[in-house]
Each structure stands twice: as structure tokens, then as C-alpha cells.
């Protein structure tokens, strides 16, 4: 049994390997960047945005990042940790890829990290599990997006600033859902009226909505990824709660991918993000304009993170002149974060996670009639995650 499974695994791993072997032989000075991301199933839109944002930066450089020719090798993990791990093993062992990025989901990243980090550098463009931010931080691991708790903490902080005294909070009953509400409560000083956990496969929230109405809180905070959030927001509006009771969430619950499906039912909802379409720095203006021209849709925060990951890697490639084999030198170059982030000011903390401003956004209809997020305030200035103190990196 084990023999057959191994050989099947080896065969499936080898097939794409053959496919990719040809260009590698021809151009040895090209730096390969392995992108493991989610391109099928319910999380497919997130991975596609990270990939497209990354590729846009490569395209800006004419096939180069930081003046060094790169080849982006994309693979779909299908939101399965075991797939991600198999792909990572193939990339670092067979194809000798030394820089990797792209993973969307924390459970995939946690399966991949032990394979990649001893022999290669990983730049996370999305997932930021606490395990890699605290004691388990690693000199070869960088996160250019956020630590998982950050956006939830931001809404907690914002509601505290706004003196909101009673909040109703809700998330699915799984590890990331419980972490989200823990992050929220870390900075929320008012009363949590109820902390509700729903089933991860639940699509009808009628019972919870009636309970929310009855509890009459001053604000509702949800973390419901993907289709769950889309349903909740639509039902929130259908129940007549939108406009009466402000609904808050992390940026993931109200970003462009969700807004496209929910439409005007999301108008007037608030969310937190380290990036927004309307941030007025020049890097962002160029990014938003070229992304829309290239792909015919507005970028999401995932796309901005993919774009930043590419430019961060580009800055380190420029500093090391494309030499990625000296892991320590490459890491030191990454840590300087010498690139123009589309979110504005950006630097790394001791644990290679961002110290950054987190904004509050409101869903509005813009001048062109599109439903987008508008920046309305700042929740945190120079915010660092809660786990940095446990990390022993300098």
C-alpha cells in the first residue's frame, strides 16, 4: 500500500518536473521563484489575485525583478496542506528553487514551512500564522502582508477608540475563527454581548441574525471567510439590519472579490486593511491603474500583497545582484525592506513581520458607480503583532 502510494506520488511529482526542466537548462542565470498558491476550489479567487499582483510587478520590470531576470513557477495547492508540501518538496529538492512565495492559507503554509525554511527563503504574501511569528520565527521566513491577528485587532482597537460599548462578535467554529475573535478582544475594551461560533459549513444565518437583533448591540463584528461572509452580508441586509446596526469585519470579508458577489448589500459596512484602493501614494496609483488595465478588474488586498511580495523580493535581488544562494545575505537584504510598498510606509519588526499602519475602510459607491472601499480613518499607527516579543531574532 505504502509502496504504491509513494510511487504514485513520485510519478505525479515527476510529471510537472519534466515539463519545467527545459527552460531551466537554457538560462542558468535566471532566478526561479516558486509560487505555491490556491487556484481551485472556494479560495481560488484569492490565489489568482496574489499570482496576478506578483506577475504584474514582474511585467513592470520587463521580466525582471530588481534588474535580475526571474522565472515564476506557479503551482496550485488546491487548499490541501499535503499538496502544498508535495509541491514544495518538488520545488526545493528537484528544481532547486531557493525563493518561494504565494501560499494563501495558514494550514498549507504550516505544512510547507518545515520543508522550505531549512534550505530556501519564503516570503509570505498572505498567511501569517502565529506559530511563525513568535518563538517559531525563522531567519528565512518573511511575511509582507500581516500577522493573522492584525486586521481583527484593528477593528477591536477602532471600536474602542470610537467608544462603542456593546459588540456582538461571530466567527466559524475552527482555529482561524477562534484566533480572529481572540485578536479582536485583545484590543476591544467594551462589553462583548455574545461571542457566537457557527458551523464552518453553515450558509443560513437567520437564527443568529434574529439573536443579534434581539441583543441590540452597538456594533456587530464578523469573520466569515469566502462564501460564508457573502451569504451573511446578504442576509444581514435582507433582515433589515444594514443601515440600522453597523457591521464590521476584517478586510477579507469586504474586499473586492466579496464586493463583486454581494453588490450593494455591503454598502455602509466597515472593515480594516493595511491597504486600500484609494491610498494616495504614487506606487499605489500606478499599481491600481495598471492592474485594472492588465486584468480588467479592480485589485484586492490579496493582489496588493502579491505585488508587494514581488517588489520586496526584487529589492533583495537588486542588493545581492541576483545571488540567492547566500541565504544570510539575502535575508539581510529582505529585512531592509527597501522597496516602495503600495500601502506606503513599511518596515519589518524583529520577527520579520510588518510594522505598519492599519486603516479603516467603508464600503461605498464611487464616482463611476462601482462598489469599492474608501479609507475613513486609521486604527493603528506603526502596529506590531502580539507575538514579536517571543521571537529571538535580532
Amino acid at each position, binding site marked *: 500500500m505504502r509502496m504504491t502510494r509513494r510511487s504514485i506520488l513520485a510519478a505525479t511529482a515527476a510529471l510537472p518536473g519534466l515539463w519545467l526542466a527545459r527552460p531551466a537548462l537554457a538560462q542558468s542565470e535566471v532566478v526561479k521563484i516558486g509560487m505555491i498558491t490556491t487556484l481551485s476550489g472556494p479560495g481560488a479567487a484569492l490565489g489568482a489575485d496574489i499570482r496576478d499582483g506578483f506577475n504584474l510587478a514582474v511585467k513592470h520590470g520587463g521580466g525582471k525583478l530588481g534588474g535580475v531576470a526571474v522565472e515564476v513557477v506557479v503551482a496550485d495547492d488546491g487548499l490541501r496542506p499535503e499538496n502544498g508540501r508535495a509541491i514544495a518538496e518538488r520545488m526545493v529538492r528537484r528544481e532547486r528553487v531557493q525563493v518561494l512565495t504565494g501560499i494563501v492559507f495558514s494550514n498549507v503554509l504550516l505544512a510547507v514551512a518545515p520543508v522550505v525554511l531549512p534550505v530556501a527563503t519564503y516570503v509570505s504574501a498572505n498567511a501569517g500564522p502565529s506559530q511563525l511569528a513568535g518563538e517559531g520565527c525563522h531567519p528565512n521566513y518573511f511575511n509582507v502582508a500581516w500577522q493573522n491577528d492584525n486586521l481583527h485587532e484593528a477593528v477591536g482597537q477602532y471600536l474602542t477608540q470610537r467608544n462603542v460599548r456593546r459588540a456582538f462578535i461571530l466567527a466559524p467554529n475552527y482555529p482561524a475563527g477562534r484566533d480572529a475573535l481572540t485578536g479582536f478582544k485583545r484590543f476591544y475594551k467594551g462589553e462583548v454581548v*455574545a461571542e457566537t*461560533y457557527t458551523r464552518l459549513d453553515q450558509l443560513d444565518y*437567520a*437564527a443568529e441574525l434574529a439573536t443579534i437583533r434581539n441583543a441590540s448591540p452597538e456594533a456587530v463584528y464578523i469573520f466569515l471567510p469566502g*462564501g460564508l461572509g457573502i451569504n451573511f452580508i446578504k442576509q444581514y441586509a*435582507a433582515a*433589515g439590519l444594514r443601515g440600522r446596526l453597523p457591521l464590521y469585519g476584517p478586510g477579507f470579508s469586504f474586499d473586492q472579490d466579496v464586493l463583486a458577489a*454581494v453588490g450593494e448589500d455591503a454598502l455602509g459596512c466597515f472593515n480594516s486593511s493595511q491597504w486600500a484602493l484609494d491610498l494616495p501614494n504614487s506606487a499605489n496609483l500606478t499599481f491600481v491603474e495598471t492592474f485594472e488595465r492588465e486584468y480588467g478588474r479592480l485589485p484586492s488586498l490579496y493582489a496588493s500583497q502579491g505585488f508587494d511580495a514581488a517588489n520586496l523580493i526584487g529589492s533583495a535581488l537588486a542588493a545581492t545582484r541576483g545571488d540567492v544562494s547566500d541565504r544570510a545575505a539575502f535575508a539581510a537584504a529582505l529585512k531592509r525592506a527597501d522597496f516602495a510598498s503600495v500601502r506606503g510606509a513599511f518596515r519589518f519588526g524583529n520577527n520579520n513581520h510588518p510594522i505598519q499602519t492599519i486603516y479603516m475602510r467603508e464600503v461605498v459607491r464611487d464616482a463611476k458607480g462601482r462598489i469599492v472601499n474608501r479609507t475613513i480613518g486609521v486604527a493603528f499607527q506603526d502596529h506590531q503583532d502580539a507575538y514579536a516579543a517571543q521571537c529571538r531574532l535580532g
Partner: protein
Amino acid sequence: MPTGLRRNRQHTLHRFRIWLFLSPNGAPFRSCPMYPTLLLEQTLNGFTLGVMLFLLAAGLTLIFGVMDVINLAHGSLYMAGAFASAAITARTGSFAAGLLAGVVVGAAFALLLELALIRRLYTRAHLDQVLATFAVILIANETVKILFGPQPIFAAPPRSLSGSVELLPGVLYPAYRLAIIAAGLLAALFLWWLIGRTRLGMLIRAGTTHRQMVQALGVNIKALFAIVFAIGGALAGLAGAMAAPILAVQVGMGEQILILAFVVVVIGGLGSVRGAFLAALLVGLTDTMSRALLPWLMRDLLPPAAADQVAANLSSVAVYLLMAVVLALRPRGLFPAHG
């Protein structure tokens, strides 16, 4: 006993009394004017889920009762109805056309399934039927993935039903959900008439209880089975079409609800449409009420952090606990059809 605990207990009792429409002094509603409206709203929520489950379970239980076939692919009929209605609604802009498409596709798919596959399985063991209809699930899911892609479709309710209705002063309830309840009750009424008052219904009832005798009397049993299967498919398609605007239309949506539909069939008694109706409402109410009430009750018994967690875990198994209790008291379900 520590006073804190005793106070907690009394508090819980007090809340229970309110839920039984009694305030502590015996006068209804006086102390907590909000609670009855919440109870009304949650009851309606329970009914919404209940009638949808009934539409699925009625077909399942008929097919099992009359034909003695376990049809796991019943969820695929529901999915087919949902996708057909979403596609036709998007194309024509008419929700009614979409609803009709859902029913027609559900019935047609069921008929095709019966003629091509199920017909060959009547004499086979249940395990063979499970195996064959499970294969149908896999094929249906892949086909839908090829036709519509892996991303879920989010349909909207018709404009005329997209608002809320004020049931009582201050109690808003989505109009579309009321329409679902009405449609479900109409379907139940139709089934009651069909089974209780028509010749076809007589044959169905006879087929459930005295199969050999019906065959011996020269009834075209093949045609009867095909019709029953098509009725089941039409009901599943209707459920799918109605569910489309409040749930997500996606691959695998059938399996998720099928498990609950089987629970309904088991609680109601195999083959009994009346039992399925009662059990569906019971399951719908149990699921909704446990989600609404348990967090609240647990908060009186446990510290808040633990209470929310325990309530979440407990409410997700509440329906199965109900099934266990019913089966312990009535091992053949509420209204067993086979006597």
C-alpha cells in the same frame, strides 16, 4: 451550595419560564416584552429550514417506502434544481421561470435516473443501491463543475420578495423566507391531497404497505415507480430552486442537506410522508432553537468564554441528539408506514 451558583440556577429557571410564555409572577410577557417577538422570529426561521427539509425528505421517504430504494443521489436532484433555476433566472430575469426550470429539471433528471439506472436496482441489495447512487453523486458533481465551474453562484431573490414584511409592530421578517414557508406548506397540502384523495395516491399507499398484492392486481408497477421517482425529483428540484437565493448554489450542496434529510426520514418513520412533515419541522426548529438559545442558557451555567464554545459544539449535534431520543422512544420513527 455557593450563593453565586444558586443565583445562577434561579436565573436560568427564570429564563426558562419566560420561554414557556410565563414571567415569574405568572403573567404572560409582562417582564420581558422582547422575548415573544424573538421567539416568533426564530420559529419562522425553524419553519423555513423545516419546509425545505420536508420537500427533500418527502421524496426520499416515498421512494424508500414505495420502491424500497435508498437513493443517495437525491441531493444531486436538489443541486440540479438549484443550478437550473439560477441559470434560467440569470438568463430570463424571471424568478418564476427559474423556479419552473428547477422543478422540471429535478423531475426530468429523476425520471432519467429511474429509467437508466434505478430500474435495474429494485431487486438488488440496499448496499448495491447505495454504491450505484453514490456513483451518481460523484458524476453529477463533476458534471456541474465542468458546466458551471467550481465557484459558487450567488442568486438573488426576486425584486418583489427582496424586502421585509412587518409581521408585528417592530418585527421585520424577510418576505422571501415567508414565501418559502408558504410554498412549502402548499407543497405539503398538495402531497396530502395527492396521496390521500387520488387514485394515484391510493396506489402509492398500497404500494408502500402491500406491494405484492398491488402487483398481483395487475397495476403497472413500473409506471407507478417512475411517477413516484419523478414526483420526488420535482420536489427536490423545487427545494433547490427555492434555496438558491438564500444559500449558495455550489457543487456538493446536495450532500450537505441530504444528511439532514435522512435524519428527517428516520425520525418521521420510513415511508411516511406525514411523519416526514412533522419530523422536518421538528428538525428545523431544533436546529434553529439550539443555535439561538443554547449560547444564552450556557452563559448562565458556565463562564462566558467556555459557554460560547460549549454552546457552539452542542448546537451542532442537537439534531442528532433529537434523533437519538426519538429512536430510543420510538425505534421505528414517529409514524412508521410499514405497520
